């Protein structure tokens, strides 16, 4: 494969070029209620060529090698077009030349497990949920995704890496008359198939919560102090803070770039946020990113002060900061963009019970139900929550969405517990999907969050 990639690179008359070939092997099993809706696997592949020349940069994705001449020509033309209108010529930060292969250790390689066994396990968890008579239906899916990547560039790097992800996840829907409720359920990771075994408790727990939500009251809209659990705190960290640590998000936004200057105080001294794709066994682990840079642990917020940023080679050069190895593509259909790997708030010195006690009155909110940012504003959903009165957790509430502003919310994190937990499944939709986007926090206490409600 490297010979093939190098032969394409030889056709590129430019200062720099790189090419990535990926084979993507997907296995999917899908249940909708009791019915099996999908089972099987597919293998596809394609190429992404990137060109840097005369201060301009461009990329092209193609699937058919017969299109390679056209792809090379188009990428060069577009790079030259870019160069005509770029105020500052684009350059790439210098990085080490790497010629390595990396295959992460797996506790059971899912490729060695039969499709029958995968079906049986998915079916078992699905049946477990459906055995609850208040559950109207399920969408429970097995997904296994293997990316076999070959990367080469004109500087001499040649890297092969495999990324293997598997999960059993989906939606559980409960119903009582006209009232319909749902919760998400997930088990998985990038550490091998064994993470999916013996997870009955996860599915039983979420099935129980889905039915309890039928008796819960809708949350009352307003401004409240809240404790977020690890999943919800993780989505907050990813959505509200993490995206603004991605240099490509802020590079051309004057005000955001000003607000996100390194050295700026953004939170209280208790808040430390780090992104670390190098943590083996975690969902977000990889060794080399999709522009051939070795991933590195990147502290972002230290004692409340902004100390780092996630970069591509291009943005590292433009910002004059260190390259971090965070440039990742969904698959062969896309040029890589800057993504979080494993982002988390580091553990504090409080306990969960201590946080509830400090909260006094407010809400304890649990488990993420999707989130979105627009600029410094964010909104994300919680699957369920509890009223907290006088430091005691009370009745369950439903229909919870939270909204806030990054800067005021970070400043309002007043306590952090010691129980960090990272997500087993992820999904970030910044232009491309990233199912290995991993996040987590300990429990966190935040003052003055807006909760929408009728």
């Amino acid at each position, binding site marked *: 494969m490297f010979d093939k990639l190098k032969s394409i690179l030889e056709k590129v008359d430019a200062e720099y070029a790189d090419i990535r070939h990926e084979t993507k092997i997907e296995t999917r099993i899908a249940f909708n209620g009791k*019915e*099996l809706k*999908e*089972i*099987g696997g*597919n293998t*596809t*592949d*394609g190429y992404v060529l990137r060109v840097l020349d005369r201060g301009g940069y*461009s990329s*092209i*994705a*193609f*699937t*058919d090698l017969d299109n390679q001449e*056209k*792809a090379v020509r188009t990428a060069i033309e577009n790079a030259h*077009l*870019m160069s005509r*209108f770029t105020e500052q010529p684009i350059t790439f930060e210098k990085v080490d030349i790497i010629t390595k292969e990396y295959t992460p250790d797996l506790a059971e390689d899912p490729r060695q497990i039969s499709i029958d066994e995968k*079906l049986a396990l998915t079916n078992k968890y699905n049946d477990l949920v459906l055995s609850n008579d208040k559950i*109207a*239906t399920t969408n429970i899916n097995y997904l296994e995704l293997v990316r076999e990547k070959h990367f080469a560039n004109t500087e001499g790097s040649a890297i092969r890496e495999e990324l293997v992800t598997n999960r059993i996840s989906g939606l559980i*829907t409960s*119903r009582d008359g006209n009232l*319909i409720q*749902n919760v998400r359920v997930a088990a998985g990771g990038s550490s091998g198939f064994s993470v999916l075994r013996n997870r009955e408790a996860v599915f039983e727990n979420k099935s129980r919560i889905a039915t309890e939500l039928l008796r819960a009251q*809708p949350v009352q*809209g*307003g*401004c409240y102090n809240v404790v977020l659990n690890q999943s919800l705190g993780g989505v907050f960290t990813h959505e509200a803070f993490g995206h603004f640590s991605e240099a490509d998000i802020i*590079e*051309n936004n*004057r*005000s955001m770039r000003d607000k996100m200057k390194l050295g700026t105080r953004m939170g209280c001294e208790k808040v430390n946020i780090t992104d670390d794709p190098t943590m083996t066994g975690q969902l977000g682990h990889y060794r080399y990113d999709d522009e051939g840079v070795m991933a590195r642990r990147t502290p972002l917020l230290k004692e409340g002060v902004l100390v780092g940023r996630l970069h591509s080679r291009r943005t590292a050069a433009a910002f004059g900061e260190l390259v971090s190895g965070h440039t990742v593509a969904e698959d062969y*259909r896309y040029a890589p963009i800057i993504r979080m790997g494993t982002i988390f708030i580091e553990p504090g010195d409080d306990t969960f019970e201590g946080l509830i006690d400090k909260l006094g009155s407010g809400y304890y909110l649990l488990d993420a*139900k*999707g*989130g*979105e*940012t*627009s*600029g*410094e*504003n*964010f*909104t*994300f*959903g919680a699957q369920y929550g509890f009223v907290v009165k006088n430091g005691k957790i009370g009745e369950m509430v439903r*229909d*919870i*969405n939270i*909204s806030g*502003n990054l800067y005021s919310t970070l400043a309002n994190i007043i306590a952090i517990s010691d129980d960090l937990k990272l997500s087993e499944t992820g*999904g970030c939709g910044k232009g491309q*999907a990233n199912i290995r986007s991993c996040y987590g926090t300990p429990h966190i206490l935040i003052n003055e969050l*807006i*909760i*929408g*409600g009728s």
Partner: protein
Amino acid sequence: MDRLIESAKLHSDAFEIYKLDESRNTIEFEDGKLKDIESTIHAGVALRIIKDRRAGFAYTKNVSNNEALVLNAVDTIKGGVEAPYDFPHTKSVPTLNTYDAAIEDVTNTTIVDECRRINALMTSKVNGQINIDAGTSISGIKIRNSSGANLSTRTSYYAITISILYPESATGIERSLEFKKFEEVDDSFLNNLIDLYNRSEREINTAGGRMKILFMPEAMYTLIWRLQNAVSGESLYHGQSPLAGKLNTDIFSKQLSIIDNPIDDSRPGARAFDDEGVPCKELVIVDKGTLTNYYYDLFYAAKMKAKPNGRGFKTLRWNDDRISVKPVPTLTSLSIEPGATGFEQLIGSMQRGIIVCGALGAHSGNIPNGDFSIGLSPGLYVEGGQIVGRIKDAMIAGNIYSIMNRVIDIEDSLHPAYTGYYPAVLFDDINVATKS
């Protein structure tokens, strides 16, 4: 394709071949700077087969390896996925004007020049930062099946989205246009955008409570997603639709009519047949507040003993790789029938209220139940019939089966937005939560 057909025939009782080729160019301007030019040239084939009423499915981007594709589809039959449908015997479909050859001559230089022109014009009139995304795509679909359908369509598309960001913020006013070929954006469109921005630049803190809410077309998908979910054959079959058994009953205000019309080729992306080869036609979902139709693909039509109505499309909300997914019930060309009131008159009729120009978190509420709870990004604050600024830190929440019965008025024109073409719609009595 003939060799693939022969191979599929050998291994199945029935087959369907779906072939897609697509090329795209996207150009991104941020703050007047050309940020990125990306191109894509992709092709692929998906194969569905039926054997003994069991379904097999496979796809590939390596279009020359027919045998492997067929064997892969055959292999999936062993799983036992039910196929209660037959592939349609579609002989003829309406001829639609979906492709304008002029798109072939549009260069990235032309689009870059247009973005620069717009940026120069707007920069002199607003304080905010201008961002522009523009791009072209050309796609071709061919469907052949064992029932004799042999269909093809070619689509050309040019779209441009212009945003003006508020100072000290990354939130702003945004609007899109789409065409079948490259067209310059006219000045009146840009001036309307500039005017809306300039009137809303001031940030305002105000108390929450129940008030009038004007949903702009760009935020309408918040409500439409919940309706789409409820009238889908998939939701009906799985017992998760609050609209099951409610055909011909009044569900919304009589002012609301909601239509899906894929064969309207005055808009780009029209389709004469769906991704299963079933002919498309206009489908009225809500007629003057009355629920009139559900929508189906082949699978759920068979399950619900209904007639398929050409709504099986290879789309998933978070997956744009059409080759890799099977068709599911989908509404592709929705619109809300416009009213008779101009946009400015709508604003003038609001004593106190909010204009929702963008929604945050529309996907994260309880969609099957019709509930929504969204951040405003941005929400423009109206007092005494005038936009007086944009509201800081606010959310609105409600349920579509309640608020869509409280329509006050509807704008007299349609605008392209995510999921369809919509007017602005003014609703009464929606709860707003703020920090104040």
